[in-house]
């Protein structure tokens, strides 16, 4: 899949109060900011996701349509596919599995980005486009795939674009499974289903 970048964020400094919120949530770290100064956008890195546009408390950010859309894409054929499969499998994903529903990015593309040198969610976003649609739903697969490749990035202080990994069904303890089964939580069956997908690799 490719991520078509059709917009870019622009900051109206007459409205901006230099709070740095846009900097703290930008999924590609396209915004630089120092306390007391206006934020600046690196347009090489901005994918027009609108996180800053939707959260700026002073409505100082607008999205401007680019004259020509640009494309963000990682070429999976540039890396050893066996290594892609290994990372995906260790992370609990099928390489073909979609991990970002906005951009249609698949696990194999994130794994390829990692093999091509990406070491943080931000670097993966710049290479694949993940985390630049809804900005919400795909952080866990990204962190799981990084971990499966032996990389455990730490969130940067004062930024809150992401914090950390959360539990998966594979780690739900037996006693918890038993305690809640009667309520309708079918952890064992769900885990089998997820493992069946992984086994198809």
């Amino acid at each position: 899949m490719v991520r078509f970048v059709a917009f870019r964020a622009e900051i109206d400094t007459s409205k901006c109060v230099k709070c740095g919120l846009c900097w703290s949530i930008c999924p590609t770290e396209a915004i630089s900011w120092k306390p007391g100064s206006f934020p600046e956008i690196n347009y090489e890195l901005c994918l027009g996701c609108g996180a800053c546009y939707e959260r700026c408390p002073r409505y100082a950010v607008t999205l401007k349509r680019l004259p020509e859309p640009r494309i963000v894409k990682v070429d999976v054929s540039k890396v050893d596919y066996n290594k892609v499969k290994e990372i995906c499998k260790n992370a609990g994903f099928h390489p073909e599995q979609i991990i970002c529903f906005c951009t249609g990015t698949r696990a194999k593309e994130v794994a390829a980005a990692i093999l091509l040198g990406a070491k943080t969610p931000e670097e993966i976003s710049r290479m694949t486009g993940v985390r630049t649609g809804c900005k919400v739903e795909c952080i866990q697969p990204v962190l799981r795939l990084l971990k499966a490749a032996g990389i455990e990035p730490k969130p940067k202080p004062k930024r809150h674009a992401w914090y950390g990994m959360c539990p998966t069904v594979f780690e739900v303890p037996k006693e918890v499974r038993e305690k809640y089964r009667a309520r309708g939580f079918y952890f064992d069956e769900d885990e089998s289903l997820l493992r069946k997908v992984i086994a198809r690799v």
Partner: protein
Amino acid sequence: MPRYKVNKEKAIGSPIKPLPPVPSLYGVDPKYVKKRAAELPGIVSIKINELFPDIPKPIWPPRNPKAIREATEEALEKVDMSMIKPHHSVNILGSHHGFTILGGEPYAEMLKTIKDVIERKTGAKNIRLKVGVGLRHRESEEYIKRFKLDEYFEGKAYGMSPLDPGIPIETEIGTFYGIKAAYDADKIVHAHNTDVREVHFHRHVDRAFKPFGMSYARLETRSAYHHNLGPRGANFVARAIFNSKFVQEKWTFAVFLRASPVGILGVYADNDLDRLDRRITIDNLRYYGKVMRLLSKIDECIVVLDYRTPIPYTFAGGVIFANFTGANIDLFDLDNPLPPYTWYTEAYYDEQERPLIPEVPPVNPAIKAIVINYAWGGYPSVFWAKKFPVIVVGREQADVYNRDPQNIEFMKHAVIADDLETAMEFAYKIAQTDKVIIFDGVYGAINVSKSLAEYLIEKAPEVDEEVEKKLLPKWLKQRGIPPEEAYK
């Protein structure tokens, strides 16, 4: 044998006028919605209370803010608020979803009443409203402004987003993250609604707990819900967070607007969320269950989307379009692992659109074409455009998706018609059916073509029988509720 026959003359009426479009960051300018699908020739409405007479009569519609206020006050009289002291700060936690029901006014009235009753019963003055969102990060801010909630809450009404600063919450299975602003008070009140909405996600397991894993939660938690726990275990994220020491120390009570396919039935309130969840589960499996199973009987149709929500959340008879996409499967039956639409399912199609495992069920084959007359962006919706023929009415509506970072690819899989009539003409050609169902947010009735109205009238009594005798007991047992509780 069915318990009754539907009186066709009483069941079919003139089409019900849907609520008008509203200005929003996520939708088309209302001036571009030139005609509503309910105005098309041949459209009628079928009254849900005639199809299923055991669904109680609503207190809204018709519009009745006084009834909501009285129902909220009455429900709250039985609630223990002694844990709230006059010096305490209190966050009333709400969700955008409540504002999509009947245009949002009933939910807004309930929220205002909760504030008033807490003040009166406890003496607490520092009461804030914190409203979470789905994937439209300004949506709740729009509702707060529209219903003047900021004024009512004396400058203390806020929209929250999963992008906002977070707070770690330790649970019995590990760390999740909540939105810090949701929990920055001494006490919290859970102000939600009973609408089933995303059955494909929560499967109606611990439905009442869901916002703790969603609209009150940070992006890490929501991502875990949709990628880490599995298609039936996802909502455990919410249960785990609710059960945490952190949340329990702030917990007071829950107040739920009691939604149903016919409208608002009243208000539930309880200190015990488990007890409330059981009541909701019985109500919803019975009432929404019947409408959902009825819609599952549709053999062929054209779907028209025409409401002020994103594509999957437009609804007919209280059932959201996303659930109709999966109506060929019983979504309440937990023996079915994957709904035809849910993110776990969407993830399992390869680049050639082939399922990765045989357990992936096809989407509802009854849907022959989709016409989008009016529906917002702000939800990744390309799945529907890939799976069904989609006709979008007007370039301006199409541009809603073209400018939406969640739907950049959507219009690559859809076509544009100049107006609604042209779109319908094209849809009839490709669908080869005259059955039309309109997802336009109307409660109490469903706007459909006459042919579909007659079809559904015929099917309703047997669906009632099937749900009461066979499905409801099974659904309840799967959720640990003795079926006898539903038949008291």
